[in-house]
Structures are given as C-alpha cells and as structure tokens.
C-alpha cells in the first residue's frame, strides 16, 4: 500500500517537472535514429516522424495534456532560435559556390519559392481546406525554425506550419530522386539546389548523404530560401488575405 502510494507520488512529481517531457522527447528521437540506421537510412523511416508519432502516442496514452508536455519540452523548442542563427555557417560556406552561378540560382530560388506557395495554397483551397490550413501552407517550404517564426508573424498556427514543413521535408526527400530523374537533371549542383528549395532541412541532409556537392547547394538553397521567405511570405500573405 505505502509502496504504491510512493510510486504515485514519484509520478506526480515527475510529470510536474520538465524532466519527463525532456526524457520522452530525447528517448523517442533516439529510437527514431536507431530505426533509421538499422533500416539503412531508408527515407521512409524518418527519425523525426517516428519521434513525433511516439511522443504523441505516449502523451495520449498517459493522458498528459499537450500544454503540460510543452511546458517541459519548451527547453528543446527554445533552441530552434539558436539553430536558425547557426544556419549562417552553411550559408557562409556555400556563398563561394554562388559565384558564376548566381543568375540561375537566384531565379531558380525565386521560381521555386513562388511555385511552392502558389501550388500548396492553391491545391488546398481548391479541395476545400479551411483558412487556418491554407494559411499554414504559406511558409511550409521554409526550414521549420524560420517557418514557425513566419507563422507567428502572420498569425497562423506555428504547430500546423511545423507539421506541414516537416511533412514537406520528408516527402521531398522521398520524391526528389524520382522527379529529378524523370526530368533528366544530372548536374549535382542543380539537383541539390532544387532539393534545398523544395525540401529544406530534411531534404538537405538527404542530399548530403548522396553527394557532397548536392548537399552544399541544398543547404545554401535552404538558408537563402529561409531568409528571403522571412521577408517575402508575410507580404504575399497579406496581399491575398486582407
């Protein structure tokens, strides 16, 4: 009896402190990484998607409200800002590869960025999605930390934006090889840059695992897309949502 009582007390203590949320987040990510490695880096076994699924199921099963979970996990969430700043390093390293190719790259980025917004918002609107969904589609091709910052500025749900951004990254990492092969795109820098524009962080890490040149161009595209979108997306959003 007293033994059971103390377990309850420990549980109450743990679920009230950030420790539990931090633990399940990191543990779920570790499980995701292990599955990703044992599946020989199969893009379908995306570690982030696995971790999100595990944590979401866990807090549903133990009936922990999301707000309680987030109170603990916000220490991880806070680091998104720092991670955004640290994107400066891959951008800086990629800057020299811009030389001589700046015109194709700038136009590729502008076209890709606009098509990404127009197609996502257009298709979702056509198929009758409500405005909170279509709003969250605007920044979805931007790397998640910046996308969430944009979402907060334009007043759409950062959570929905994060979900769409992560799904976009996973889908892009899976579909990019098929799309690029079908179009006969052979140059690594073109392949990498297109993946960086369309599938940001997750696509970039996939590009790095295929070819270093593709990876460099992918991270350059991701970084530039993030910075330009942070300026452009709020303007485009307010143009169509008055």
């Amino acid at each position, binding site marked *: 009896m007293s033994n059971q009582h103390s377990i309850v007390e420990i549980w109450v203590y743990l679920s009230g402190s950030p420790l539990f949320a931090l633990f399940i987040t990191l543990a779920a990510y570790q499980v995701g990484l292990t599955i990703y490695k044992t599946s020989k880096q199969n893009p379908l076994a995306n570690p982030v998607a696995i971790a*999100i699924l595990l944590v979401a199921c866990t807090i549903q099963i133990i009936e922990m409200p999301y707000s309680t979970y987030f109170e603990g996990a916000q220490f991880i969430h806070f680091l998104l800002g720092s991670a955004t700043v640290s994107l400066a390093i891959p951008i800086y390293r990629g800057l020299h590869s811009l030389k001589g190719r700046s015109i*194709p790259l700038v136009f*590729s980025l502008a076209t890709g960025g606009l098509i990404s917004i127009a197609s996502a918002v257009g298709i*979702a609107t056509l198929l009758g999605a409500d405005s909170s969904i279509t709003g969250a589609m605007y920044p979805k091709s931007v790397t998640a930390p910046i996308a969430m910052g944009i979402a907060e500025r334009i007043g759409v749900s950062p959570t929905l934006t*994060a979900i769409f951004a992560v799904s976009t990254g996973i*889908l892009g990492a899976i579909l990019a090889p098929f799309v690029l092969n079908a179009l006969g795109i052979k140059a690594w820098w073109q392949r990498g840059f297109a993946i960086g524009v369309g599938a940001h962080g997750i696509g970039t890490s996939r590009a790095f695992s295929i070819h270093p040149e593709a990876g460099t161009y992918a991270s350059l595209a991701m970084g530039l897309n993030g910075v330009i979108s942070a300026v452009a997306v709020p303007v485009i959003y307010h143009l169509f949502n008055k």
Partner: protein
Amino acid sequence: MIFGLVQILLFQSLGELISQLLLPTLPGPVIGLVLLVLWLVIRKGVNAELAMVADGFSQHLGLLFIPAAVGVVLFLPQLKANAVAIISALVGSVVLTIAASALVARLLSKKTVHE
C-alpha cells in the same frame, strides 16, 4: 564548444533586440542569422568552436521540431477533416517546386554557357 554557443547566443540576442526595436516584421533569429553571415564575411572564416556548435545543430535540427510538432494531437480532428486537401497540396507542391527549381537552374545555366 562554449565559445561557439556564446557567439550564437550573442547574435541571437542582437537579432531579437533589432527585431524588437527596429524591424518587427522579421523574426529575431533570422536577423541574427544575417548578421552572423555578414560577420563571417568580414572575418573571412568560421572559427572551429562555432563550426562545431553549428554542425551539431544542423545534424540534429529535426530533434528541435518535435515539441511543436507533437501539437499535432490538438489538431487531429481538423487534419482528418481536411486530409485529402492537405496530402494533395503537400505532395503536389513538393513535386512542382523541385521540378520548377531544377528546370529553371538548368535552363539558365545552359544559356550562360552558350553566350
């Protein structure tokens, strides 16, 4: 590693400060990113400690989205109701974006080679 973190947090704070005072349309971390790129261009190099922290972040960037993305549990009914629209929009947009970016890059680089 600590020195690397100090630099990142310094630029993040500078970005937040500028965002609060001068440029409220841009998120603070994005301003911090731009300032850090400019600083690296002026300094002409990334010091080892900064590179170590940045590589750590980019390697495990995915971990940092988890707390926000778990918020999916709050939106499950809404996502289910709009599932077809969301999936079509995400798949269609990814394919079109990657195809368009790659085609434009190839088209313009061929032109510059011929000229």
